[in-house]
């Protein structure tokens, strides 16, 4: 058995301050919209006010007459795209309307204000068709997709689930739901597009410059080397900027029509609620069964969720139930309703986040039914090998996280009886839940290392930093890979002129980009030694990791939460959360801590706040701003205690690290729901947990 060559340097593991911190604090780090361009024009989108049908006519005369308007773009005058197979991207290519809020036109003008005003003057008549925009789990139109997101099988079956479930001593059969949620990064989706002399330059708010560049090149029929995408700093994405959406295509279409003049396009907050991805609502039936000793005998996880009629996205919600616990029998299924809605997409931990809300809530319920402490119940069902693949784990330290979390949080003397602790008007409770996230790898990343003299090395990779700390972490990795100090690394990321890097998604960035840098450093030293000449350069790819054939690779974690619920009002507050993670080596404790805190705060948000309200009559989200779509304020987030256990995993990658961008959200909503139950005796199975669900 061979193990990957390991990092032994000093920079990895150091709490290096963010390299880009001072620039961001001073406001000098340019985000997409802030890149200086000469004589820009401004774009404002016209959006459909029906959910399904076709455009009969568009009257643009009033818009066109507004002083300062350059062009009003419609499906009739928009340039034709070269490739319209992806219907999400085929913007203004036909008179079809597939969802409410879809781009059906745009105004290009000399100022943003003029563009926005003129866009409101475009008059459209539609031939409207009957639409369906709300997920109905009882619908007879549900279907099984061929695969679900990330290539997982749609359904799985192990053992005789029906017999095991029906004959078990203890059984649970409950349905849990999660609502539609929208990613809402602080920086909205933004593009500055310049089409000049057959070349296209995009300053883009994206999680991956190369994937955007390749998609745009394909859609518009351009050679890849004629498309440059630049994104040095990105104000969050949470998955919504992982795949290019129609907004980028609209900006490129506009740039093509005003060749030579840059187009600036930023979505309003309201426009963030259609067309840039969201988390599908889910309806999850959980059937768990256990024997008298509290060993699981059946795990059933049946998911109903939605996709767009015009393009499929199938969230892998039940996948966590395939590997989390040991059981004699297991069944998982995914069924989709195809609706007249924008296509769902990635939102921080797609699959794991909603799936673990259901599984970990159900585990809490079954623990109580078995008369077992919820930690002990999980420990009893800890698998020795990965139940799904049959492979051993490269490392699995869930139990260590649960034990360490219990110690830090003070779980030991917990009275399991619900609704027994009251302080003034507050009902107090505590809850626990597990977390997991796979070690994903994406193919194809490459890094270039070049010696620049004076002891300095340029490290180039077209990776992204969406606020996560990539600038800093890859600098540390480069320093150790080259065995030099971090001050001698000139890292360059966020530009398609740099070598290809896969998307910052699936918590995979550091694993694959870091591995590419390690490989490039190895080859560099092999060819050029310790004393290179200025200009010496190598490029290398992320090598295959043969250990993925031998081991199942996942990160794990555990949350402990205290909730206080106002007995009069049902208001839920979370004064403290403890998160303990097993994620291999931590590259930078400072930025990692921020990632975990952010993930847990987003889990709190999922538990208590976030819900996109779709009005079925119209087909769109009606609470489409941050006054009505709630995310937590500082006052909602109490003490968050984050730590991680020492975990030595020699198999995952040369850094020994596992991705940490997403695991912080996975399961934290369940921990809160479990704590709310412990506080009140009320089991809320439908997120978010709002006062109306707790008041009698």
């Amino acid at each position: 058995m061979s193990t990957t060559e390991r990092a032994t340097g000093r920079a990895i593991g150091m709490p290096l301050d963010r390299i880009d911190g001072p620039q961001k604090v001073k406001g000098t780090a340019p985000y997409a919209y802030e890149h200086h361009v000469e004589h820009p024009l401004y774009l404002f989108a016209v959006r459909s006010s029906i959910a399904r049908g076709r455009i009969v006519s568009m009257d643009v005369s009033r818009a066109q007459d507004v002083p300062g308007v350059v062009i009003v773009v419609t499906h009739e005058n928009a340039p034709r795209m070269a490739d319209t197979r992806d219907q999400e991207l085929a913007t203004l290519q036909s008179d079809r309307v597939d969802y409410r809020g879809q781009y059906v036109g745009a105004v290009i003008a000399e100022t943003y204000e003029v563009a926005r005003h003129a866009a409101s003057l475009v008059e459209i008549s539609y031939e409207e068709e009957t639409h369906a925009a709300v997920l109905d789990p009882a619908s007879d139109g549900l279907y099984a997709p061929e695969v679900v997101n990330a290539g997982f099988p749609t359904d799985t079956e192990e053992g005789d689930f029906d017999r095991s479930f029906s004959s078990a001593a203890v059984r649970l059969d409950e349905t849990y739901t999660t609502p539609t949620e929208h990613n809402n990064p602080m920086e909205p989706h933004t593009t500055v597009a310049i089409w000049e002399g057959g070349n296209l330059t995009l300053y883009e708010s994206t999680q991956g410059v190369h994937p955007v560049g390749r998609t745009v090149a394909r859609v518009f029929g351009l050679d890849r080397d004629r498309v440059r995408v630049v994104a040095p700093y990105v104000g969050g994405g949470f998955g919504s900027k992982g795949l290019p959406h129609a907004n980028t295509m609209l900006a490129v279409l506009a740039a093509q029509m005003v060749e030579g003049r840059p187009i600036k396009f930023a979505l309003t907050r309201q426009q963030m609620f259609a067309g840039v991805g969201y988390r599908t609502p889910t309806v999850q039936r959980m059937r768990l069964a256990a024997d008298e000793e509290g060993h699981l005998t059946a795990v059933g996880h049946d998911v109903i969720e939605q996709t767009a009629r015009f393009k499929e996205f199938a969230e892998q919600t039940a996948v966590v139930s395939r590997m989390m616990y040991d059981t004699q029998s297991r069944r998982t299924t995914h069924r989709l309703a195809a609706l007249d809605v924008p296509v769902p997409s990635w939102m921080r931990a797609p699959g794991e986040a909603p799936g673990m809300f259901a599984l970990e809530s159900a585990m809490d319920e079954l623990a109580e039914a078995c008369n077992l402490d919820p930690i002990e119940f999980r420990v009893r069902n800890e698998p020795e090998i990965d139940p799904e693949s049959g492979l051993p784990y490269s490392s699995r330290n869930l139990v260590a996280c649960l034990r360490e979390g219990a110690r830090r949080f003070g779980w030991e003397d917990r009275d399991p009886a619900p609704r027994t602790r009251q302080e003034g008007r507050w009902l107090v409770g505590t809850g626990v839940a597990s977390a997991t996230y796979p070690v994903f790898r994406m193919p194809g990343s490459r890094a270039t290392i070049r010696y620049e003299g004076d002891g300095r090395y340029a490290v180039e990779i077209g990776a992204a930093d969406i606020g996560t700390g990539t600038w800093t972490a890859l600098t540390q990795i480069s320093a150790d890979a080259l065995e030099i100090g971090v001050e001698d690394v000139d890292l360059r990321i966020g530009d398609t002129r740099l070598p290809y890097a896969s998307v910052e998604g699936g918590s995979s960035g550091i694993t694959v980009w870091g591995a590419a840098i390690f490989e490039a450093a190895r080859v560099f030293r092999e060819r050029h030694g310790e004393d290179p000449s200025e200009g010496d350069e190598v490029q290398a790819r992320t090598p295959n990791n043969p250990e993925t054939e031998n081991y199942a690779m996942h990160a794990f974690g555990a949350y402990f939460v205290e909730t206080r619920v106002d007995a009069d009002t049902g208001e839920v507050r979370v004064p403290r959360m403890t998160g303990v993670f097993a994620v291999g080596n931590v590259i930078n404790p400072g930025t990692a801590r921020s990632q975990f805190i952010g993930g847990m705060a987003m889990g709190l948000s999922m538990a208590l706040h976030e819900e996109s309200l779709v009005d079925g009559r119209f087909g769109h989200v009606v609470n489409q701003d941050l006054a009505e779509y709630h995310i937590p304020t500082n006052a909602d987030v109490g003490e968050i205690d984050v730590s991680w256990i020492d975990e030595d995993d020699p198999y995952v990658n040369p850094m020994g690290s596992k991705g940490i961008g997403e695991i912080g959200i996975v399961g934290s909503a369940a921990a809160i729901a479990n704590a709310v139950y412990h506080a009140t005796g009320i089991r809320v199975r439908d997120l978010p947990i709002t006062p109306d669900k707790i008041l009698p």
Partner: protein
Amino acid sequence: MRPYSYVRADDVEGAIATLSGAPDAAFLAGGTNLVDLMKLGVETPEVLVDVRRLTSERVEDLEDGGLRIGAAVPNSVLAADRKVRTGYPVLSQALLAGASGQLRNVATTGGNLLQRTRCVYFYDTTTPCNKREPGSGCSAIEGHNKNHAILGGSEHCVATHPSDMAVAMAALDAFVNVRGPEGGRRIPIEDLHRLPGDEPRHDTVLEHGELITSVDLPPPGFLSNSKYRKVRERASYAFALVSVAAALDVQDGVVRDVRIALGGVAHKPWRATKAEEALRGEPAGEENFRAAADIELESAEPLQDNAFKVPLARNVITRTLLELSEGR
């Protein structure tokens, strides 16, 4: 946003004259609500008349022992005013329960009273709304209406008034001083905001061209034993699901006087006069407080998503009065 012109008047009279001559003109003070609504195309004034510097920015003593609050007093200044904090704690607490620090620094007393509803359909020009576009229909009655009215709604509108400050002022029996083309008038705050009826377009009884110049509070008396309790889904920066402004005067265990106003339940700050009447002269205590709340809420007509507001309001009225009676 529709193009508009911006003018600054020299004085109140000038501002009123400018507005009176222009049917599509609006007063601009802090702009925290109006400008948002203009961006969304909900409000489309052709002329903005800036009145920010025309009315008083001070809180002054009145001869009767009350206070006069200039219309331009920022919410943050009013909340911090020593006499408000001691004489009318309910008002200070209500102000601090609203918006955010940044918004309170800019938002004015007059403007706060004139906030428009936060009904999502009112905010969305692609959906019908009788308040925004009379006769187009109410999308909320059959739509998402968790935040909507349980009291005083009509078949035309079930919107709620979003202000916290106004709820406290309703409990305090404040008077709103107004100047207009026809001269001045003094409106009991109870009469400023109206129920939607068949004219939900109008939030208040103010005529076009009338400008709020100040708000008068009566002498504090027992109002210094007052409290604001706001229930919302997150701990800060959210509009009330239900709020209660209350003042209580208990002597020898008997309720001598009481004021209760509710927010988040109606098209206007809802003065709970039935509950007040039921309590005057009765022993103070949880049972009576709860019974009085029930009397007030008897006429509640919840919608599909907001039936929880009835027990919520009952619980919060009861708890707030109980805390006031116990000196908490």
